[in-house]
């Protein structure tokens, strides 16, 4: 460094970088991360994100409990995870540094808002001495940036009160990071204008703070170089950045269009599913009816009522809500009506970790009902796949007249990735038909409608909706006589109906794609996954193969029924590992179903697997096999 600052620093190219923004819940870290992500997406990077925030809206300021973080991984090549360890941590206060430091790679870069490192905040964070001075950060590259005071100064002329000025400091951080990583400011400026346009002072303050952050990077002599992460070479097309919940909501709108049936969402707010309700509430132009019910039970009840009336009925929830809906799901199984139940899984049991991810509702989805009540279960594997999974779940529900559970999780729900938009014309036709004529001739020649007369191929029952003349009929939760649908307590009939309902669901296996295997044909080790572990497994498998080791992987979208070839595929390998964010639910299922030696790789820490963790487990398993 020389005495005279260079207006432009040398540019260092990186193939990827993982940045973690952390601060108080009120510091706007989710927004900052989200904007950085958006600018990176528009710049053409591949990316993956992991929002990580507490359940409390505003836990006591300055405490470790209140720390909210957002990790983003940007890359010039195809990536699958939000990154293992952060290369860069932006810590807006001591608490953020304390709670997040262990997530930074050794020798990583740390930017702190040094203004907050006073005695009071250090104490609140549980530090007895200042980590900036006591050697805690030895080995890291630390930049002490007075973000608060620089922001206050930047907005001083705008007539903004100091307290309000303080609230713009996240934009200062965003401006600085944008400079450091050569992100264009323009998209952020436009966004700030659209978001705060109505409040002139706040708009001006945020814009000023953003620019001040950029200028600070440019003029302060702290930084030796800027970095650049070049655009990734992705498949040509139009891209957008989506979170899983947005993609899922759009998938439901798409399903409604593709089925030519109005969409009805009955839902009760629950983290991390509520954003689907929020998103769908906007889309009235698509004829979407959203109903915020009095409770989870009413949410699914209303959805079932709408489905009975011929709408595409959907309810959205998370684990505890799914438990409450169990009885109504039993009714839907008995009524044989199409219904979608979306479960955005979170850490459980009970309230558990409401804002953290887990995938421990698989067995609840499959078996969490009274009686023999089989139903199809579909699981999304990436944020953008939530769109297609919603359409697939709707297709099965409508074709087979059955409730379907669609599983996603907190990680997919809030995580974002670039998505190459599909051509709407390529999406499947999932229309179904309602009965309009009698379907049975009684012995005396009278034409009748039998609500439980089935299609011989799919075993789906004939479905007449209210308003159809001449086909009036009664259905309910009491066991029905096969075909005719009247109440029947006859023992043999009940057994026949139990078997028919099971056979109908089992038969769907012939109507879903076979499971495909990626990787080495002659591998001994198969990694079987489901749900959001897809990204981490993909990255880990790539690393293992890059080391020249042989490994194969398969990922399940359909958990009930399983693809028809799954047993055959599993039987080909000496060893099957199943990474799961639970204690081994799929593992248990495949062991029971196929008598294979499947072993779980379990993680239940409220955060996804890192690629590194899985890589180590896969390598260890390979070593064992080769020993």
């Amino acid at each position, binding site marked *: 460094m020389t005495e005279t600052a260079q207006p432009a620093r040398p540019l260092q190219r990186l193939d990827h970088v993982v940045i973690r923004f952390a601060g108080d819940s009120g510091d706007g870290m989710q927004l900052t991360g989200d904007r950085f992500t958006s600018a990176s997406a528009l710049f053409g990077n591949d990316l993956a994100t992991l929002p990580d925030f507490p359940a409390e809206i505003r836990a006591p300021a300055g405490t470790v409990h209140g720390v909210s973080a957002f990790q983003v991984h940007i890359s010039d090549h195809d990536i699958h995870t939000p990154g293992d360890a952060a290369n860069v941590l932006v810590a807006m206060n001591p608490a953020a540094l304390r709670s997040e430091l262990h997530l930074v790679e050794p020798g990583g870069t740390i930017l702190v808002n040094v203004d907050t490192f006073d005695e009071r905040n250090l104490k609140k964070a549980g530090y007895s001495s200042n980590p900036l001075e006591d050697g805690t950060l030895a080995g890291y590259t630390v930049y002490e940036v007075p973000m608060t005071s620089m922001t206050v100064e930047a907005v001083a002329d705008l007539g903004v009160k100091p307290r309000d000025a303080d609230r713009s400091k996240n934009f200062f951080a965003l401006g600085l990071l944008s400079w450091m990583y050569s992100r264009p400011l323009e998209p952020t400026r436009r966004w700030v204008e659209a978001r705060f346009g109505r409040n002139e002072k706040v708009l001006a303050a945020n814009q000023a703070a953003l620019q001040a952050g950029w200028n600070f990077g440019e003029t302060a002599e702290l930084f030796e170089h800027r970095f650049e992460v070049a655009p990734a070479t992705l498949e040509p097309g139009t891209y957008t*950045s989506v979170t899983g919940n947005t993609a899922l909501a*759009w998938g439901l709108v798409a399903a409604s269009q593709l089925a030519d049936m109005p969409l009805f969402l009955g839902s009760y707010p629950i983290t991390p599913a509520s954003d689907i309700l929020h998103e769908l509430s906007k889309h009235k132009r698509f*004829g979407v009816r959203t109903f915020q019910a009095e409770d989870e039970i009413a949410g699914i009840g209303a959805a079932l009522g709408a489905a009975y*009336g*011929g709408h595409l*009925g959907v309810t959205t929830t998370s684990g505890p809500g799914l438990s409450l809906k169990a009885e109504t799901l039993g009714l839907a199984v008995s009524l044989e009506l199409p219904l979608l139940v979306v479960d955005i899984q979170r850490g459980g049991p009970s309230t558990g970790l409401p804002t953290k991810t887990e995938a421990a509702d698989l067995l609840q989805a499959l078996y969490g009902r009274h009686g023999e009540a089989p139903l199809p279960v579909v699981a999304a594997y990436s944020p953008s796949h939530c769109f297609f999974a919603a359409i697939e779940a709707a297709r099965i529900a409508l074709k087979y007249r059955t409730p379907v559970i669609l599983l996603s999780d907190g990680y997919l729900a809030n995580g974002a990735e670039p998505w190459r938009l599909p051509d709407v014309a390529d999406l499947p036709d999932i229309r179904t038909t309602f009965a309009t004529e009698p379907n049975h001739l009684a012995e005396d020649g009278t034409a009748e409608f039998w609500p439980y007369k089935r299609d011989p191929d799919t075993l789906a029952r004939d479905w007449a909706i209210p308003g159809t003349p001449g086909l009036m009929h009664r259905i309910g*939760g009491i066991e029905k006589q096969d075909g005719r649908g009247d109440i029947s307590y006859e023992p043999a009939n009940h057994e026949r109906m139990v078997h028919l309902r099971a056979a109908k669901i089992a038969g769907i296996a012939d109507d879903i794609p076979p499971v495909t295997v990626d990787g080495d044909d002659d591998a001994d080790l198969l990694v079987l996954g489901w749900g959001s572990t897809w990204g981490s497994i993909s990255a880990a498998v790539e690393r293992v193969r890059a080391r020249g080791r042989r490994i194969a992987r398969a990922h399940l979208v359909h958990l009930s029924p399983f693809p028809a070839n799954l047993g055959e595929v599993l039987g080909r390998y000496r060893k099957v590992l199943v990474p799961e964010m639970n204690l081994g639910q799929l593992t248990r299922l495949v062991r029971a179903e196929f008598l294979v030696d499947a072993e779980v790789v379990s993680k239940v820490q409220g955060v996804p697997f890192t690629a590194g963790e899985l890589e180590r487990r896969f390598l260890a398993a390979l070593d064992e096999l080769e020993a």
Partner: protein
Amino acid sequence: MSDAPTTTRKDWASDQEVRWCPGCGDYSILAAVQLLLPELGVRPENTVFLSGIGCAARFPYYMNTYGLHSIHGRAPAIATGLAMARPDLDVWVVTGDGDGLSIGGNHLIHALRRNVNITILLFNNQIYGLTKGQFSPTSEIGKVTKSTPFGSLDAPFNPLSVAIGAEATFVARTHDMDRKHMMETFRRAHEHRGAAFVEVYQNCNVFNDGAFGAITAKDKRSEMLIDLRHGEPIRFGPEGERGVVLDAQGHARVVDVADVGADALLVHDEQRAEPSLAFALSRLSRGPFEPTPIGVFRAVERPEYGASVSAQLAAAQDQHGPGDLAELLRSGATWEV
């Protein structure tokens, strides 16, 4: 619907054998509904009866309409979805005191406050019948039942007070011994746009026989039933010698007309927007052992929920045109590769 082909009672009765206990009050309610519907000019295919669990909940099986016998307490929630999705249908909910006020109490009050266009008939027999005789949320304190051999300790709900408390827009009471009164009350309930709530005193001759006999027996009615008529002073008794006044505290009280003079009597106003009057009338009788009002307590206009939902959709489509999926997918920031 006056141009719809006329129907008869036969068109509304299903081919199912009615399986209530012989002598059950439900039979007369079923008859009243089946006799009324042909008079309303409505069609069986556009009519849906929904129910939960309990003796009353078997009602849909006996109607030749669309019918859904669901699960305990949830019928108002299911009906809410159906009525929102299909405003073209006549949606009836048949429930009981246990189904509607115990396990399903939450759904009932929310359907009422939202003013969903459904007609709710709550058969109140003050007992659990289908589970063979436990006390219900409308059973009187001290009730000796299988689950309360030492007498029930639970203070009962007054179904009308609950409905009025939830600001239901239509609240009425009738009883199973008077077909004409039932038909008239159900007719009014059906005409009402929004949620209509009708409590039907219904005798369970097996587990709670005669619960309402002190007021509904033919020879008791004139002195024990107070027939509410909109715009008329509230009087009853064989010679109209008794009446109802509102006292200084706003409580409704039964008086002898001779004591207060006819001009002092309360004039019934079912259309009063503020629910206090209807509530006061619902509190007049502490139970079916003293003079009890029947008829329409409250019938006010408020926007119907499903229609409001549909109006929001229509307004969005009028303003911006129907939704376009490809456009939706491009509604965020996009970039080309």
